């Protein structure tokens, strides 16, 4: 979708704000939110593409003004409610309880098997690479043009490189296609290509000299030139 998250090339967002000695988590709720992601996505309650799209459909004003882990909270609430794992009214009621009693603690529970499984997931990863029988359509050195498409749903084709010509620099594995996997329409794996764009092609006269941008793109995002 042409959402506020698709930020490449946007002006006016300000200076890069580097926090000195930034902690990994700024407060306990950020750390808990990360744990909730590991536990819920790690147990397959929703997939990574659904997770990302849930952030993309946030209110744009909220997206731009909220802290990073709030985005995670928003999408996890949305996905878990939609999947029927939790009930929206129950969540709102429980939130009110904690607003009234900020010092109240979360119920304590230990689950060594779950913790161990998730530790293994952290160490082993969860690749979305898939075997496909087809050969890649494009090869290294091929000139390609990105399609000028504007899907309403999830895609990983950024706006700033739509309808642009580039050269295939690398051919990667076939990966789960986010455009369908985010909407319960299947994995439909496609080869992913690292495409090299001259900055002038992307930004015209605004391009800095001697700049190249590489973007990783699924096969259906590309056409031959």
């Amino acid at each position, binding site marked *: 979708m042409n959402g506020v998250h698709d930020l490449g090339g946007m002006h006016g967002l300000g200076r890069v704000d580097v926090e000195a000695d930034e902690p990994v988590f700024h407060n306990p709720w950020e750390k808990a939110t990360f744990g909730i992601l590991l536990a819920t996505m790690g147990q397959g309650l929703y997939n990574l593409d659904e997770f990302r799209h849930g952030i993309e459909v946030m209110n744009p004003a909220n997206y731009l003004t909220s802290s990073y882990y709030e985005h995670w909270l928003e999408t996890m609430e*949305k996905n878990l409610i939609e999947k029927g794992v939790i009930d929206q009214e129950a969540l709102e009621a429980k939130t009110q309880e904690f607003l009234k009693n900020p010092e109240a603690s979360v119920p304590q529970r230990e689950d060594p098997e779950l913790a161990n499984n998730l530790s293994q997931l952290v160490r082993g990863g969860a690749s979305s690479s898939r075997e496909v029988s087809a050969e890649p359509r494009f090869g290294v050195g091929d000139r390609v043009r990105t399609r000028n498409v504007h899907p309403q749903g999830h895609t990983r084709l950024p706006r700033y490189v739509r309808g642009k010509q580039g050269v295939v620099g690398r051919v990667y594995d076939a990966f789960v296609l986010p455009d369908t996997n985010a909407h319960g329409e299947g994995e439909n794996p496609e080869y992913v290509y690292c495409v090299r764009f001259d900055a002038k092609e992307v930004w015209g006269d605004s391009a800095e000299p*001697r700049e190249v941008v590489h973007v*990783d793109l699924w096969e259906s995002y590309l056409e031959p030139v």
Partner: protein
Amino acid sequence: MSGERTTDTRQAQAPEDRTYPISDAEVAARAKALQSLLTEKGLISNDVIDKVVSAYESDIGPMLGAKVVARAWSDPEFKKLLLEDANAACEQLGIGGMQGEHMVVVENSAQVHNTVVCTLCSCYPWPVLGLPPNWYKYPQYRSRAVMEPRKVLKEEFGLDIDESVDISVWDSSAEVRYFVLPERPEGTEGMSQEELASLVTRDSMIGVGELRTPEQMR
């Protein structure tokens, strides 16, 4: 790619009296509420947070990437493997995992300086760099790094890339996770791998910062 679909009914959905940003108190309450409900359902536990998440505060961080870089500087065979198959090379050092299942290393040289970004969200090679800092995930860097990298590096990070050097920006838009192999600095001959690793900063492996110098380490 799919064609047009019905607009998601929760898109930009907000009650009319909602204002942003949401208060810290409310966000904290929501996180606790969610954790509570999931705990009651047996879907999460405290040791997930205390043990598994804590790994990203202590064990998984840029010191791992620094080890990889130091080894590549010291060992030409390892460097060759790192550039051809970064995952295989990192696994030799016991490094790898979530959000690094498909890593690619891009090498700086006298001709090319590399910088990594994720314009669409916050994709970052966790197994070698740990979790990304806020500046990497927030709109300012994500919007500007692909359009004016030389200016961003100089004005925001104090990294002045000479006009004669090309800048290659890698937008991590799919599942490949990039990190930078900086050039080995002069005056480091004879340094051990541990000493070399101590020169390697997280920001040098993203492509926005310099290495430490041997002089700084004395």
